[in-house]
Structures are given as C-alpha cells and as structure tokens.
C-alpha cells in the first residue's frame, strides 16, 4: 500500500535536495563538532554567509557590483549596539531598528546613485562604505572610535541567553536558512528572471514591462537589510565591535566570493565556506590569504566567467526541471477569458516631431491606426522609422505633439508603463536575454502577469506559484503558436539568427499585447522564413492584435498590410492602402529617385 504523501515527499526531496542537506548541516554541525574554535568559526561563517546571500542577488542576479557592503554591515552592528547599550533598548528591537535604519540609508543612497551604472555605481558604493568606516572610527563619543565598542549584551529569548556559540550558530543558521530559501526561489522565479533580464539587456527588459529602477532599488535595499542583520548578530556574538571589522577588505572579500561562486546561492555558499575556512586556517598568514583570493578571482574569470554556478548548476537543466512542475493543466480559476473585439482607433499620433541634437528625425508626423489592422511603415534608410517606433513605445520622448493610445494620452509615459498598457515590440537588431533559455526569454515577456515582490515570491507562497503557472502556460502557448517549442530549453545564444528573431516575436506576444510594434522582423530571414512570418503576422492580427510593421521587404509589407505609411526624411509623404501607395508619385520618387522615374 502506498502511503499518502509519499509522492509529495519524493518530489520534495528531488526538487529541494540541496536545501534539505543544508538544513541537516546546520542542525548537526554543532552537535557533531565539539571543538570550541570550529563552532565559533561556524558562527562567523554563517554571519558572512548572510551578507553574501544578499549580495548574490545584487551582484550575480542583477549585475550591480557593490564595493561597499561592509558599510551596511557596520551600520547594522553599530546601530544595534548603540541602541542596546546607550538607550537600553531590547536587543531584538535594536536589531530590527538597525535593519530599518540601514534600509532607509540604502534607499536614500539609491535615489541619486542608482542612475549611475557599472563602475561609477561601484565607486559610489565604495565611497559610502568608506564614509561609514571613517565615521565609525572618528565619532569617539558614539562609536568608541578606533578603540571599539564594548559590553554589547547577549541576545535573549525568555530565559535562554545566547551566550554560547552553539546558540548563536543556530540563530544565524536559522536566519540563513530562511534567506537562502528566499534567494534560491527568487533565482528561479519571475523576479529572478527579471533581474537576469536587466543584467543581460536593459533595453529589452524595459520593453517587456520591467521597471528597472524599482527592481534595482528593491534588491539594493534587500541586500543592505541582510548585511545589517548580519552586523547586528556579529555585535551580539562577539559583544565587542571595532572599525577594523568593517574595512574595505571585507567588502572586497565578499564580492570575490560571489564572483567566484556565480549566480546560484549554493555555489556561493560552498565558495564562502571553503575560502573563509581557508582564511581562518591560515590566520597567522593573514595577508597570504588575500593573495589566494586574488588568484582564484583571476582564474575564475578566465575559466568560467559566470562563476562556479555555471558549471555546477547550468541554466538549461533548471528550466527543464521546471517543465515537470507545470506539466499539468492550468487550473480553471486562473484562466483568463478575455475576448478582444474593439473597433475604432487604437492609436492616434498628432503632429509629433523629434530631433537628435539638431538633426531633424521626424517632422510633424500624424497618423492613426485602427484596431485589428496591420499598418506597414516604409521609407528609405534614415527616414525616421525606428525613431517613430521608439517614440511609440516610450524609448524616446517626442519634442512636441501628442500620442493617444486607446483614448489615453501616452505622450510622456515610460517604456515599462506602456508595456503595462499592452504595447509590445521587437527590435531591428535582435535583443534577447543572453545566457537564458528560450522559454525563460519568453517568460520574461510575461513579467507583468505577476505582482509578487521579493518576499512573497521568495517564500514560494501560493500566489507566486500560481503566477509562475500562468506565466509558464502562456509562454508555452506563445512558443507553440510559432512552432518553437522544440527549442524551449536551449540557451538562446545557440539558436540561429532566424530562430532568435522568432523568439523575440514570441516574447513580445507573451505580453499579450493589444498593439505590437515590429522593427524589420524579416531582416536576415530567407524566403521560406519570410513566408512563414507573413502567415504568422496574419494569424496574430486575426487574434485581435494590432500590428505596426516597419519593414524594407516590399513584397511582405504589400501583402500583409491593411494600410501603408511612407516616411521620407522625417516627413510623411503618403498613407493609404498598399495599392494606392504603390502608385503615389512621391513614393516612387523617394524610392527610385527622380531621374529613374523620368526614364520610365
């Protein structure tokens, strides 16, 4: 007889074996190890692991390099201690207070600095870390200065005093387990994909409806929060803190561990244990260990630039595993039953102009598109076609004029807001999220189908699981409709150019758009592929999606378009049915030149 629940247990073990092993290690470590110094090392490791968990999301998921997280670590430790000792606040409350203060500081830091990118943002974080370090060293009255801050009380629950290393190990281990769970889940779900998308191609991520700044802000504050908690635990563990625990070297060491570990929490934790354990083992030769860190970092970038994770936990495998999770049908209550049958005008562009620093790209363009139509936009190179698309989906703001979409003024809306209003697009040059599988790319297109944040998503609550299911289901449908399902689990970089174009189209369709902007979808396709594209475009229109098609391939444009709009030197020169436009004199002149026309 089969016991009920055994299947569930089976699948739990299969899916979560690293996590189960991890919990077992945390539980049995202090029981098995009797050596006082090794348990103490265990606590230190767990504390650093908490910082590293947060930084993994920031640096490896999202791609923001922080050189100053020791600053947040210090803010947590010092605030916690000062609140406890000077204001005699309960240590637990002090810990929470410190974490809140850290998040506020991280938030205030983000407001001006997140607009910076790459190394400038890194140097700004370094500046912040140094400011905190120097302040902790020089504000003698508050922090005890270079001499340090002593007599920090132990944590306490009821009569249980956390004065033994064992208890602190369990405390830090418990927090670590929770956040490892969150971060591990996050990596495989909607937000994790969004982060990777931002890191890999910010432009396409925005077009898929991802609010880049907001996500960066959340993750930055999340990682600062974790560093702060780790700092508080450190303070209550050693009961003494000094500025030397929060130097730049700490930030560098954590960063190096993450860069070696890669975008997977397990491989970073393993790296952390090995490297920090090693550092402790050769403690007498402290500076020798920094050399080893450095060497390993350099070797990592040469051997596997995406870190250990890319070797141990390759992405394509994870996506395939996921397919089993969602193979069952989508529950009835999650199905959307939206029928589109709108009539009238979906888009009205009025008198829009744009120039690139003096070069007029568009001049007083007006056009309107009706629902369920394909509008082709043609014109010679440099006529302003792509500029027009970029204005329509918010990459550029028009200098004057208005744009009305579904009777709403969208002239000054941002890209991700327009994606939310169901405007999707593809790009002239393929903009896919490299390093992700095909299905994940398409799933990013459905980012807006979910609303859960870091915690709800990370804790894998039912709402977020349902969201995942909806996202998965739609992505599969979108791939199937284009006949791409057989490539679903391949890394997108390995696809042919034509297939990559289709993946981009699938991603745009996954957004379930009302208006689809296509920028030269036939460029680089062969005849058979182009014919297939034409069929696909008609099918898409028949599903109730309006299409604006910028294209050079005349037979394609003329055969699928309901109306054609012709641009030349930023001005509209003709608009009408394909037959009408073909005969229009100005169009012929623009395409063939005046003399050619005279000859004919």
């Amino acid at each position: 007889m089969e016991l009920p629940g055994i299947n569930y247990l089976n699948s739990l073990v299969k899916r979560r074996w690293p996590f189960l092993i991890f919990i077992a290690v945390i539980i049995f470590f202090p029981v098995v190890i009797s050596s006082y110094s090794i348990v103490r090392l265990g606590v230190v490791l767990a504390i650093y692991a908490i910082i590293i968990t947060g930084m993994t999301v920031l640096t490896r998921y999202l791609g923001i390099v922080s050189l100053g997280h020791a600053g947040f670590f210090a803010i947590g430790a010092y605030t916690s201690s000062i609140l406890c000792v000077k204001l005699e606040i309960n240590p637990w409350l002090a810990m929470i207070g410190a974490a809140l203060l850290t998040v506020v500081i991280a938030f205030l830091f983000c407001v001006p600095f997140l607009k910076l990118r790459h190394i400038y943002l890194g140097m700004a974080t370094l500046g912040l870390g140094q400011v905190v370090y120097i302040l902790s060293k020089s504000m003698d009255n508050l922090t005890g200065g270079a001499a340090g801050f002593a007599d920090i009380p132990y944590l306490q629950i009821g009569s249980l005093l956390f004065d033994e290393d064992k208890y602190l190990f369990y405390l830090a281990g418990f927090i670590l387990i929770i956040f490892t769970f969150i971060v591990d889940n996050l990596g495989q779900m909607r937000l994790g994909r969004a982060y990777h998308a931002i890191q890999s191609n910010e432009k396409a991520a925005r077009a898929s409806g991802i609010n880049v700044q907001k996500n960066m802000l959340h993750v930055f504050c999340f990682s600062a929060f974790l560093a702060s908690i780790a700092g508080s635990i450190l303070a209550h563990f050693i009961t003494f803190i000094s500025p030397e625990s929060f130097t730049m070297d700490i930030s560098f060491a954590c960063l190096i561990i993450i860069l070696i570990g890669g975008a997977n929490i397990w491989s970073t934790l393993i790296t952390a244990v090995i490297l920090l354990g090693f550092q402790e083992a050769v403690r007498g030769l402290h500076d020798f260990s920094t050399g080893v860190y450095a060497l390993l970092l350099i070797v990592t970038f040469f051997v596997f630039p995406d870190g250990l994770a890319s070797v141990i936990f390759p992405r394509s495998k994870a996506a395939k595993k996921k397919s089993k999770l969602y193979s069952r049908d989508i529950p009835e209550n999650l199905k959307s039953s939206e029928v589109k049958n709108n009539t009238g005008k979906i888009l009205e562009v009025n008198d829009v102009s744009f120039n690139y620093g003096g070069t007029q790209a568009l001049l007083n363009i007006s056009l309107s598109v009706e629902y369920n139509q394909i509008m082709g936009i043609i014109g010679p190179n440099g006529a302003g076609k792509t500029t027009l698309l970029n204005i329509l989906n918010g990459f550029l703001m028009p200098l004057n004029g208005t744009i009305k979409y579904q009777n709403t003024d969208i002239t000054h809306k941002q890209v991700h807001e327009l994606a939310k209003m169901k405007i999707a697009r593809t790009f002239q040059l393929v903009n896919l999220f490299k390093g992700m599988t095909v299905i994940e790319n398409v799933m990013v297109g459905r980012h807006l189908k979910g609303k859960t944040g870091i915690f709800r998503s990370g804790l894998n609550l039912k709402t977020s699981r349902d969201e995942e299911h909806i996202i998965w289901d739609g992505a599969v449908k979108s791939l199937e409709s284009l006949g791409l399902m057989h490539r679903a689990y391949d890394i997108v970089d390995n696809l042919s150019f034509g297939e990559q174009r289709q993946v981009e189209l699938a991603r745009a369709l996954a957004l379930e758009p009302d208006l689809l902007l296509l920028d030269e979808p036939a460029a680089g396709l062969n005849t058979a592929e182009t014919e297939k594209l034409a069929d696909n475009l008609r099918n898409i229109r028949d599903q109730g999606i309006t299409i604006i098609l910028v294209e050079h391939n005349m037979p394609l444009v003329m055969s699928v378009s309901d109306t054609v709009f012709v641009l030349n030197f930023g001005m509209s020169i003709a608009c009408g049915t394909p037959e009408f436009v073909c005969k229009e004199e100005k169009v012929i002149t623009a395409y063939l030149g005046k003399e050619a026309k005279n000859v004919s």
Partner: protein
Amino acid sequence: MLEFILQFLASSLTEGCVYALIALGLVIVLRSTDVLFFVQGTLAMVGGITLYALFAQLNIPLIISIPLSLIICTIVSLLTLHIIVLPLLSRGAPSMSVSIVTIGVSMLIEMAAMLIFGKNNLAVPSFSGDEPVTILGASFVPQHFWIIGFTAGALLLTLIFFKWTWMGKAMTGLGDNQLLAKAIGFPVRRLFRYAFIFSALVGGIAGIAFAPISYTGFGIGTRLTIKGFAAAAVGGITNPVGALSGGLIIGLFESFTAGFISSRLKDLITMALLLLVLWLRPQGLFGKKNN
C-alpha cells in the same frame, strides 16, 4: 594665520599633484579601454618601493635608479595588460568584470611586495637634502619642488601627446566604441599598450616623487587608486586638465580639513566630495556632458 593658510596651501599642492598624476593614469586607461585600472595606485607603490631598493638600499644614483624604477613599473603594467586585460577583453568580458579583475591583480602585486619587502614602512631619502625653503612664510622642503616639477612635466607631455599626436587623439576616443575603432582599422592593441605604458609612467612618477615625503610600503596602492579616482571624478574623466584640477581640489580640501578640523577626517572629505560630484554632476566639474 596667513602663514598657516599658506602652509596648508603648500602641502595641499604637493598632495594634490600626486592625486592628479594617479587620476591622469586612470583617465587615460578608462578613456581608451573602458576599464577602471585598479592597479594604477599600486604602480605608484611599485615605483616607490623599487626606488627604495635601488636608491636607499643599493645606493645607485638617482639618475639611474629613477629610470630603472619607471622601467619596472612599465613592465608590471604591460604584463598586466598582456596576461590579464587583453585576453579577457578579447574574450568579450564586460569592462566591469575586467575592472574587478584588476583589483585582484593589485592584491597580488601587493602580496608580492609584502613578501619581498615586508610589512614595514620604508623610508627613502630626499633627492636634494632636507633644508626647508621659506616662501611667503610657508616652508617647503626641496622634495616639494621635485613633486611639483615632475607633475608639471608629466602634465605638459600629456597635453602635447593628446592635443597634437593622432595616437593621443585616438586614445581618448577609443573607450567610446572599441568595435568601431577596430572596424575602421585602428591598431587597438597598440593603443592599449600606449595607454598602459602611460599609466605606468605617471603612476611610477607619483610613487617616486612622493616616496621621500611620506613613507612608502606595500599597502599604499589601493588608497591612492581611490583618491585618484575621486580626483578624476571630481575633475571630470573626459580630459587630462580635469584630472589635474580634480587632484588639486581634493588635495586642497584634504589639507584644510586636516588643518582646521581633524586629520582623521581627511579621507572622509574626499569620499564626501566623490559622492557629491557623482550625485550632482556625474560628468565632473570640468567634464562635458556625454549623451
């Protein structure tokens, strides 16, 4: 009081010159390769420490030991370029990753220096005595003039190089679009090599000139790189003059903070300036806005 201020001005000038030289190196490498070269400050350490070995230990005259030190710096810089930076860039590694890797390189060089020379501060004698000279009430040691002279010379050569040679002009534009540069036939590798030699020379000069005034030692590099970056960011990373003015501004703020408030807050003011500029004027005080 006036004497005090003059004294601070004098010391800020010398410190500012060192930051300016480091900033200059950072700007040139950043502009041509798009990599923030964390080894820059460490090259100053290499210069200073080699001078210590040659001049202070082996008593080799300055006229030989200074060029030798600069050659060692250049070798270290070129090795970094050819073993680490070029192979990574040609594999398509993002410049951010390469920048981080140079942190690793600088840590390795520091460790090697520590293994050879130990952890102690190393004193290098002044180039031409320690008899102070008083100008307008502020006293200078002769080494100050060496520093100012070296900086002025380096800056002059830089300006000539970037204004009047096509190679110099090409280098400042390369970081913007390496692929394009390669496509239109620029010898990108050669340009990178020039940039790294340049960075070694200005770094080395900074280290050499400053060694007699402050102690040198294996760990001074990272601090110098950070100060140099702050100087470059304050001045604007687009041009050499910006780097020089940034260095002088940082030097000024530092010595006045040290003099009037507390020497412990010296580094704080630099970091605050860096953050302020990145916030309010990311292109730097003298930089052009880049769209």
